[in-house]
């Protein structure tokens, strides 16, 4: 009878166990608080975090700091020369943003270094002009999201050619306002980039360690966060906003085509931005996801999935590199290269969102729920 008693007691704690589970689950399994490092490390996460994500943020911090410095120099002495310097620094910084937009989770979300604030296009030119003309504004205010970030600078620095642009910052009645707004824009991006870079770095917030430690594929695991974030960046930002909307795929009530809605419309270097984004997606995939996929028996059309994805990303990059320059003009001229590229974008979306996620057992749009 003694063993029975012990067993009885064991059973009587089931209710208590439920209680403990409940109290743990409330605080413990939120996606925003990944579990502390346990178990064996994941080589893919280590490589992605150390060699791809952290350097990308460091690069963004450096280039946005350089941009801010160029803006300061320009504001102190606005000339054609300093304007060109700012424009060059702007392009470099914008391109380095494209290598980080894929990582919208953890520090990037917490510190608002997100597409919503940094890269909302088409930019809100009316609000920008109002702000320049002396309206009260908070640069990072919620209502100001579409009048800030790279697209706002794209407008201020490139919209009307260099002569008019220079005049806007020198002889225009609101030149001081324009200089002030440009400075506020570049300072805001610089501050956010520095903060996120610091949050990832081992000497700062060391999110890198958290990232490497949160293994597995559940909601809140690094792999789930990463794949969800970059698939979203590709599916929504690239496919829909950068190409789909400008070529008139959506919306029954707007004009069929909206070439002015491309990314980097005023500076006209949309293609370079797209190329950098696709290269980054490729780097992420080849940074360790490839090994994970290769280790599965996943297929696509009877071929090993890893081979299919690698080939598709290469094809896509070629097609993106072949896009007409500037993209907006190509859209007006119905360039066949754009529909070619869009076909590959669509194929890639399916491969990433369906095949890749399902081969690795990662749920896209994973809502933490009660499970099955």
């Amino acid at each position, binding site marked *: 009878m003694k063993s*029975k008693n012990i*067993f*009885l007691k064991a*059973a*009587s704690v*089931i*209710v208590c*166990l*439920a*209680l403990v*589970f*409940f109290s743990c*689950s*409330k605080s413990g*399994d939120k996606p925003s608080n990944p579990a502390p490092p*346990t*178990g*064996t*490390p*994941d080589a893919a996460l280590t490589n992605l975090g150390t060699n791809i994500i952290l350097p990308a943020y460091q690069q963004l911090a450096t280039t946005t700091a350089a941009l801010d410095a160029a803006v300061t120099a320009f504001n102190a002495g606005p000339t054609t020369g300093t304007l060109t310097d700012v424009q060059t620094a702007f392009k470099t910084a914008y391109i380095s943003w494209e290598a980080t937009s894929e990582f919208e989770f953890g520090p990037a979300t917490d510190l608002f270094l997100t597409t919503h604030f940094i890269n909302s296009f088409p930019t809100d030119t009316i609000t920008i002009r109002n702000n320049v003309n002396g309206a009260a504004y908070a640069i990072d205010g919620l209502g100001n999201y579409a009048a800030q970030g790279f697209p706002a600078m794209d407008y201020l620095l490139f919209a009307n050619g260099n002569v008019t642009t220079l005049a806007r910052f020198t002889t225009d009645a609101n030149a001081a306002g324009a200089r002030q707004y440009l400075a506020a824009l570049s300072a805001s991006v610089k501050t956010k980039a520095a903060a996120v870079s610091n949050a990832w770095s081992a000497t700062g917030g060391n999110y890198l360690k958290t990232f490497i430690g949160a293994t*597995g*594929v559940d*909601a809140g695991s690094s792999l789930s966060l990463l794949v969800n974030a970059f698939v979203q960046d590709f599916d*929504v930002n690239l496919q*829909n906003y950068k190409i*789909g909307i400008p070529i*008139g*795929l*959506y*919306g*029954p*009530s707007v004009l069929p085509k909206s070439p002015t809605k491309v990314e980097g419309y005023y500076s006209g270097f949309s293609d370079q931005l797209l190329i950098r984004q696709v290269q980054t997606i490729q780097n992420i995939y080849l940074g360790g996801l490839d090994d994970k996929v290769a280790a*599965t*028996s*996943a*297929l*696509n*059309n*009877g071929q090993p999935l890893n081979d299919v994805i690698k080939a598709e990303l290469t094809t896509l990059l070629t097609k993106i590199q072949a896009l007409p320059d500037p993209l907006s003009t190509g859209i007006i001229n119905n360039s066949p290269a754009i529909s070619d590229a869009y076909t590959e974008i669509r194929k890639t*979306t*399916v*491969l990433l*969102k*369906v*095949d890749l*996620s*399902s*081969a*690795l*057992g*990662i*749920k896209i*749009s*994973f*809502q*933490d*729920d*009660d*499970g*099955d």
Partner: protein
Amino acid sequence: MTAIKYLTRYRNIAPLAVFRMAFGAVLFFSSCRFIAKGWINDFYIRPKFHFPFFGFEWLTPMPPAIMYLMYIIMSIAALFICLGLFYRIATILFFLIFCYAELLDKTYYLNHYYLVTIISFLLIWVPANRYCSLDVLRKPAWLTTQVPSWTILIFKYQLLIIYCCAGLSKLTNEWLVRAMPLKIWLPAKANIPVLGPFLKYEWTAYLFSWASALFDLTIPFILLNTSSRRFGYFLVIIFHLLTAILFQIGMFPWLMMSATLIYFSEGFHLNLIRQIRKIFGKGDPAPGEHYLPVNKRFQDTGLFLMGFYFLIQVMVPFRYLWYPGNLLWTEQGYRFSWRVMLMEKSGTCFFYVRDGGNGRKFQVNNAEFLTPYQERMVETQPDMILQYAHVLKQHYQTRGFSDPQVTVESYVSLNGTGSQLYIDSSVNLADEKESWFAAKKWILPYKNGGAK
């Protein structure tokens, strides 16, 4: 009739009382957890559209304040079930509110929510509050120690059906021969402590697949048998704890571990109650037997209806046989069948709307209409694809489209066999009708793609 005699003979109430307390406690924690995680907002307030079950399209979510109030009432009802206070009202309230929330949107359908629905329904009909409860403290005359055995047996039979159906649904090529989807899910957990190193091997997926099928098929019988019961419950704990560690399946393991307590003997449960009383500083319950008064005619009618209920319970999981094609692919007859964690399925879909008047065709931005969670569920479930197509039709009709036509280009991958076209993209879904049991002819057949 011996069957009637078997079902109506008196048995000690203790198993039922413990079941009530354990299950009520889990329901209470589960409801509070639901509120605390902000899911009322995420699931019922934020979405613009919902996916009610067929036949319940007239249900809509209440205003936010009422939704919260209902969940609070439901949590309190669960606590009252656990305590056995105002039990009948509490069970009815819990069942109605829970059912309402489940019927509102099939996006959130889970096997374990279905389990909660039917167990809370069954709890309405049994006198589980007549022992070891606040109701008895309130009305000592209600004290009952002996109840007709059917009040306990229905839970044992219900659980037996659940485990057996879950087991039978695993006897497939996918599960046993390909070891899918565990072959995908287990290696993904290869970095967890202790178990992790074993999970990357293929044989582990096979072991887990076969063992879990065997477990599901045999555990109810191991639990029913007196001599193997304790070993059986040990297996229950191991199995469900393992699933809790390996998968994100929330409350399910805890529900099953509390529910299967019902299989234990009355001696075990009486002991358990003594232990619980000790915690509260109380001695043994007063001796003496109190029989539940029974209206024989009511009981016989009730038993007949119960028989009908169980007949349906046994039949519903097998309705899939009615439909052509691969069940996992078409999901026709998938829900309400105890098919748990059977597939790794994901998809993506591009919806197109064409104005029948001017012929203009454009792609729909799904994010404008659906939450990411709803979108994910739509992507792999044909009945939800159809419902969404109707949402789009209605939306664009009100925006002045004449005869909006909705088509979908949809890709789905099942158990790692690669994305393939899921729905016939030439079919105008706006004109397709949902029905109770008719097969959906616009689901394209599943091609295995040469996967081994």
